């Protein structure tokens, strides 16, 4: 383990590739092998769901890997597109009115691209305040000019919230790519680090909640979220973090701690997004489509939307980059 640090960047990349896709491949082989056996009908449906999830995971991983390997520009573009699609889904779920048209146009076609341009050009100071300060002031003005006082605060707040989560939050992932750590080009590994850590926390929490059957903390919102399962998720995130420490600028203990923080934020973010979907009246969760097909991407990226800003700022603050 000690020698891993001394490997070259390309060797690191190769090793990560083998780890990630090897893991996925193994899971797929096991899943397919299990599929040959006869199953009870209810188990069958769980199995089918898992297979769909696995397929989505493959697609996501492959896309992410390609973008990541292709460099900062392609990765930024990929996350900008993901941001766009997630925000589209978010707006679909909220009730906006005609008067919001201009504000929505500004959010989609001005704020979103500008935010990612700021990321791409490494204007980190402006990037951190652009949405919380400038877009925050501009969007309600546009909505007010729409000349419709009905539920004004509610509508404006929803657009603001969506912009903050889907655009501001997610844009911190490619920002990590471009963050410079003492000349080393390991910002790229930080992106992989946070994605894997958050995914690890999510999967571990899901498995733990199935196994343990603890009393849910917020039954109305999520039947599976319990503090114990959350803790297992955090622990898993920490372990994934330590396993990856050699590719990051962190020491093992730092990697553990930061992994725990990011993983915990991510799974809490998932809970918040579940609350939002409940509010919007969406019963199904993941994969299965609703009337407009507005289910799927948002809940998959939600943990990242919440974990990435916390991760970005704590790393930046702690290391003084």
């Amino acid at each position, binding site marked *: 383990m000690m020698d891993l640090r001394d490997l070259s960047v390309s060797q690191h990349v190769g090793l990560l590739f083998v780890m990630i896709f090897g893991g996925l491949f193994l899971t797929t082989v096991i899943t397919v092998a299990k599929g040959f056996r006869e199953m009870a009908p209810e188990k069958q449906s769980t199995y089918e769901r898992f297979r769909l999830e696995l397929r989505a995971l493959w697609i996501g991983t492959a896309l992410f890997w390609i973008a990541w390997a292709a460099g900062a520009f392609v990765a930024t573009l990929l996350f900008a597109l993901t941001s*766009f699609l997630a*925000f*589209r*889904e978010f*707006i*679909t779920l909220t009730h*906006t009115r*005609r008067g919001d*048209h201009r504000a*929505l*146009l500004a959010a*989609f*076609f001005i704020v979103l691209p500008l935010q990612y341009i700021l990321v791409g050009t490494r204007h980190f100071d402006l990037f951190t305040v652009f949405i919380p300060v400038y877009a925050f002031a501009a969007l309600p003005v546009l909505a007010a000019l729409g000349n419709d006082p009905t539920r004004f605060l509610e509508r404006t707040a929803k657009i603001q919230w969506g912009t903050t989560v889907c655009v501001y939050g997610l844009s911190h992932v490619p920002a990590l790519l471009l963050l410079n750590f003492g000349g080393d080009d390991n910002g790229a590994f930080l992106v992989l680090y946070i994605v894997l850590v958050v995914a690890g926390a999510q999967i571990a929490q899901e498995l733990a909640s199935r196994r343990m059957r603890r009393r849910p903390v917020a039954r109305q919102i999520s039947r599976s979220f319990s503090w114990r399962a959350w803790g297992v998720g955090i622990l898993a995130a920490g372990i994934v973090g330590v396993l990856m420490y050699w590719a990051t600028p962190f020491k093992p203990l730092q990697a553990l701690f930061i992994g725990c923080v990011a993983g915990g934020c991510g799974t809490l973010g998932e809970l918040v997004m579940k609350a939002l979907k409940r509010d919007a009246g969406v019963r199904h969760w993941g994969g299965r*489509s609703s*009337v*407009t*097909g*507005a289910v799927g991407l948002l809940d998959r990226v939600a943990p990242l939307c919440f974990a990435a800003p916390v991760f970005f700022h704590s790393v930046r603050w702690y290391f003084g980059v």
Partner: protein
Amino acid sequence: MILQEVAGFALATLARLITGAQGHWIGSPPKAEQRIYFANHQSHFDWVLIWATLPKDLRSTTRPIAARDYWTASPFKHWLTREVFNAVYVSRVRVDDEDPLEPLVEALRNGDSLVIFPEGTRSNKGEPQAFKAGLYHLAEQFPEVPLIPAWIDNVQRVMPKGEVVPVPILCSVTFGAPMQLAAAEDKRAFLQRARAAVVALRRAER
């Protein structure tokens, strides 16, 4: 030849990107047969959405209706409706000795499918308005062509009447089971039944 294909592809991609263009075929599968689709009408975007949800092979034979005075007013509008969408032009000004449905009848005789919005005008009240008689007359003249009701959801939020730039919001088109003019069914009853078939798709179980 190439240009309109590129334009068609670009438009379909754009519609996908902005609305997701989800098609739910719950009552009838997409099929290469002659059909008359009829749907609620809330926005100029309606036609593009239906067109984008159709499988690619069906797009060239499925034609919209366009008002001649508006859609031939500029060279670009004319080119778009004629070359890309293969629209059937109808005139809104009624001339005494001319049947306004004549171009539609001709298109159906050629074996093309049509998409019509029987409300006649865009409504933004949520509930569709009463259907105009055109659908009835077509059903009467072409009893063998299946009539497919369709409900277009959410599109009024994408591009409200009077706005030009669409906001990205997911939309869907739900296609229902084919219906036909029943024996001895009068105009009023048929039009009400057709409207009810469209409205029923709004809350259809998917």
